[in-house]
């Protein structure tokens, strides 16, 4: 059957929520097995001690990216539905500002939201504190919304992809990203040999 199933088959809310529970289960399971329940395994990348975050993230991204293209080739996935209805919209500058704040929060706090949940079930007190901080952060964002609400929805570029920006096909763009990931894997190994903070 051609996907995305929930959009083409008009799944009921109950079905969708059961799917959420099951994919969430496997998401959490794999994150734990990747070592992402401990802040040290997550921040070591920034000190060139252990680049596992880069390896896991880029191999996951490439697997899903190539998988979606292959599924669309063999008629199991309608990529045009994704592009028209569910691709994440780009709000360029807000997302860059969000990226700066998030990058700071990641290395200072030691977690990102999903991994903090895995840290919590692993018994890590720091992840509970991080999650409490995030909730306060959400309150601050909401309280200041009158100030930055219009910026939040600015620089709206709509649903746009890298291959459209570069004027190429999604296949060529995907190959370029896979090559980039492979180069990053080689550089990661060199970075670990360098590990400048532990000399």
């Amino acid at each position, binding site marked *: 059957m051609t996907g995305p199933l929930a*959009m083409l088959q008009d799944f009921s809310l109950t079905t*969708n929520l059961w*799917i*959420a*529970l099951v*994919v*969430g*289960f*496997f998401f*959490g399971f794999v994150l*734990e*097995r990747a070592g992402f329940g401990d802040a*040290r395994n997550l921040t070591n990348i920034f*000190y060139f001690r252990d680049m*596992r975050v880069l*390896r*896991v993230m*880029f*191999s996951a991204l490439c*697997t*899903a*990216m190539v*998988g979606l293209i292959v599924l669309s080739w063999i008629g199991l996935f309608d990529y045009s539905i994704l592009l028209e209805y569910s*691709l*994440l919209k780009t*709000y*360029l500058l807000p*997302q*860059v*500002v*969000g*990226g700066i*704040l*998030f990058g*700071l929060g990641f290395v*200072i*706090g*030691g977690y*990102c*939201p*999903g991994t903090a*949940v*895995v840290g919590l079930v*692993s018994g*890590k*007190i720091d*992840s509970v504190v*991080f*999650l409490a*901080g995030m909730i306060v952060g*959400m*309150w*601050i964002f*909401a309280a200041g*919304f*009158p100030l*930055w609400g219009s910026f*939040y929805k600015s620089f709206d*570029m709509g649903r*746009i992809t890298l291959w459209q920006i570069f004027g190429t096909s999604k296949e060529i763009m995907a190959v370029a990203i896979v090559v980039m990931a492979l180069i990053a894997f080689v550089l990661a190994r060199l970075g670990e040999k360098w590990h400048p903070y532990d000399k």
Partner: protein
Amino acid sequence: MHEPDYAKGFWNPYIAGIALGLVLLVTFYLMGTGLGASGAVARTAAVIAHGISPQFVETNGYFKGFYGAGVRHPLFDWVVVQVVGVFAGGLVAVITARRFRIGVGRGPTAGLGLRLSLAFFGGIIGGIGTRFAMGCTSGQALSGGATMAVGSWAFMMVVFATAFIAAYFVRREWS
């Protein structure tokens, strides 16, 4: 290089990455959207705030979207249920690997007070960041990245660039 105890016993990172990618692929095949996490925290924050001051939440420009007329309860939501799944899956993984330990992840010479206060502070900044970016490592970097969304890639690059630079200034926390 010597591998510390906390890094032992996990899957090979490439295998873990492919497994994670397959979970993401199945999610896209079923739903047309990817995985998430920060949205569930935002909704939880709205619910707690609503318990303290319903009026603030219902008139607030950002939170009121979760509590409008005819809108289901904010926790009755796809990403919230998905994060409940993350709790369950993470817990099963931790228990079956006998890895549950109460503790704090920090550098060998970093103080407990320093680490916990920075965890809180980092959570605040990171939380605000997820709202401007409309997602986090799961929703934007991973899910948006796999579908080659422009904003997701901009977010991911900026996150890593910022964190690599900022790492220098908090090196005592992790060393």
